[in-house]
């Protein structure tokens, strides 16, 4: 196995790393995922585990940790991309109240599955990130909200918390410092909306998972009304490596607005679907073709970052875009969770989008009218009408009106998460919608996708 980290001719190269082909690039967050036994404390420690937390707790003040994370330009990996260090600095001054760090592990956006493997195979990496995060915001309690279906991840995380407590890594005087941190793992029970941070807080408090109004933001009045910071799983694990290797290392990867290394996911009919870690600034082509081996059958489009991000057509100009916040915004879409879903040519777009719409309809919490009546009731009915061969051109106009008028009117982002990809599907694939209403049958009729 050749050593790619220390070759001297690369030291002079100061250009940002934007490809996995770059010999200076190293996978860090997924290095141990998939390795037998990697979930144990012994394994983790024998591979340098908890050294970042020790460094942060014994050598750095909370504000130094925040400054380091700010300098790294890490943006939240849950989808919205808010700068993590800035979010941490929103916490009010210490006033004696309990302060909380909550990790959003409710990973439920279709096409996203990066957090699951971290919690199953490398839970200590998450715990280490949380210890550093707790120190930065001066919280003594961390809480992980993990989705109910991730039972394996839940058990592994509980086991890791237990191991860490016994080893003096959680509890009072963490790692020989005078800092206290403990972690509670809270299991959800099947509700996509709980990935929205205010709904998550309600759920954590033992209420129905309906979203809350913002402001107040969690830092002012979060869980139990206490100062709270909410971060994604891989935001936390990124922090571990930022502390170990420094902000400069992290910021040496990516583009001006999107720095660091990130986990991307790819699903749909490609040769090697899965989670891949890449430097930001890499293109969709690198992920889809070089790493995942390309589509197994002709493709016509892709969701760039989970099913709530507007799909893009399968064209060179889009495949060659960088998987960054900026490039996606310019293309009229979003980076989201980085969960790419490839849409094969033979999958009729009306049927594909009905699947997506049905998901959001099922997951609408019913709190506000635009989402409950528009997304959860009328939109799926319109799709059913089209798929039954009963649609008209007027129905298409009505559907487009409906999603346009839903945008920006709902209480939380769930309605937009459905409306935006529907709008994009009309923009890029209107011919398939027109075909089904004009002919009473879909343009593409393949229905059996199952392997023998």
């Amino acid at each position, binding site marked *: 196995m050749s050593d790619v980290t220390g070759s001297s001719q690369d030291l002079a190269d100061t250009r940002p790393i934007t490809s996995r*082909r770059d010999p200076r690039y190293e996978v860090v967050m997924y290095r141990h995922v998939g390795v037998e036994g990697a979930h144990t404390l012994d394994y983790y420690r024998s591979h340098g585990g908890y050294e970042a937390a020790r460094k942060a707790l014994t050598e750095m003040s909370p504000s130094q940790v925040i400054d380091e994370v700010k300098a790294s330009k890490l943006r939240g990996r849950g989808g919205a991309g808010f700068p993590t260090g800035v979010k941490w600095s929103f916490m009010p001054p210490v006033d004696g109240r309990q302060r909380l760090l909550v990790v959003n592990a409710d990973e439920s956006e279709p096409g996203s599955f990066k957090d699951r493997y971290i919690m199953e195979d490398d839970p200590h990496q998450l715990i280490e990130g949380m210890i550093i995060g707790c120190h930065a915001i001066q919280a003594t309690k961390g809480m992980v909200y993990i989705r109910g279906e991730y039972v394996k991840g839940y058990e592994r995380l509980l086991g890791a918390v237990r191991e860490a407590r016994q080893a003096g890594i959680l509890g009072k005087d963490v790692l020989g410092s005078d800092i206290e941190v403990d972690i509670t793992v809270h299991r959800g029970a099947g509700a996509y909306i709980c990935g929205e941070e205010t709904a998550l807080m309600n759920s954590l408090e033992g209420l129905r998972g309906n979203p809350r109004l913002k402001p107040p933001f969690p830092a002012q009045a979060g869980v139990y009304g206490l100062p709270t910071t909410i971060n994604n799983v891989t935001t936390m694990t990124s922090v571990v490596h930022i502390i170990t290797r420094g902000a400069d290392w992290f910021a040496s990867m990516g583009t001006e607005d999107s720095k660091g290394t990130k986990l991307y996911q790819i699903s749909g009919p490609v040769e090697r679907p*899965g989670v891949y870690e890449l430097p930001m600034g890499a293109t969709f082509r690198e992920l889809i073709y*070089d*790493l995942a081996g390309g589509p197994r059958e002709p493709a016509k489009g892709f969701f760039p970052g989970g099913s709530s991000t507007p799909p893009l057509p399968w064209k060179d100009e889009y495949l060659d875009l960088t998987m960054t916040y900026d490039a996606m915004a310019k293309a009229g879409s979003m980076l989201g969770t980085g969960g790419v879903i490839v849409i094969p040519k033979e999958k009729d777009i009306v049927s594909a989008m009905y*699947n997506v719409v049905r998901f959001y309809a099922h997951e609408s919490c019913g709190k506000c009218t635009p989402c409950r009546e528009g997304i959860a009731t009328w939109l799926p009915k319109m799709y059913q009408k089209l798929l039954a061969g009963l649609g008209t051109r007027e129905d298409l106009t009505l559907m487009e009106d409906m999603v346009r008028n839903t945008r920006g009117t709902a209480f939380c982002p769930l309605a937009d998460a459905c409306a935006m990809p529907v709008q994009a599907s009309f923009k890029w694939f209107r011919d398939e919608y027109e075909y089904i209403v004009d002919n009473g049958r879909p343009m593409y009729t393949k229905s059996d996708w199952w392997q023998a």
Partner: protein
Amino acid sequence: MVELDTIPPFFADKQELVGEILGRYPEVGKRSAVMPLLWEVQRAERYISEARINEIAEILDLHATEVKGVMSFYSEYHGEPVGKYHLQVCSTLSCSLAGSDQLYDYLVEKLGIVNGETDEEGRFSIQKVECLGSCGTGPVLQVNDVYYERVSRSRCDSLLEALKKDEMPEAWRERGGDNEGETKAGFLRNPVSNGGAGEGEG
């Protein structure tokens, strides 16, 4: 409530467990224990009866309607008994592109029950569910708490045969991408070439 008189209470002899669950949350957050308590009941009894709802309400100083309101919000809590093997078929886009619609149809054909039903024997029940976070290894079938990934037609047959004999196989934890593990994914060797690199999924 008639039920209360006819079945023994669930939590009466589990004070230690209740104390441990309440202890996970700050004192102001007693109500947070509602979801873990519901989970404890469901894990033991496979559904949550009115009697258990009342018990939980009493423990947490809540009205039974508040507990039921929480329970009914989440799709994983069952108000009615489900089968000994509760088959949850992911039906969202990536799984659908890997054949989950046909997988569901096949289960319906084989077991004679549809979404939301339990068979007469009480052995199998089917629930169509939304994205389980196994998009790269679809179609996925969750049986009770266990994920079975890349469930092809032949693997579905073998799974059903095993379950009929009350043999629950270990989870089928499928791999792909960087979660193959360091050596197999080979990412220390700069794996990227112009296509044709690596091997297909086994």
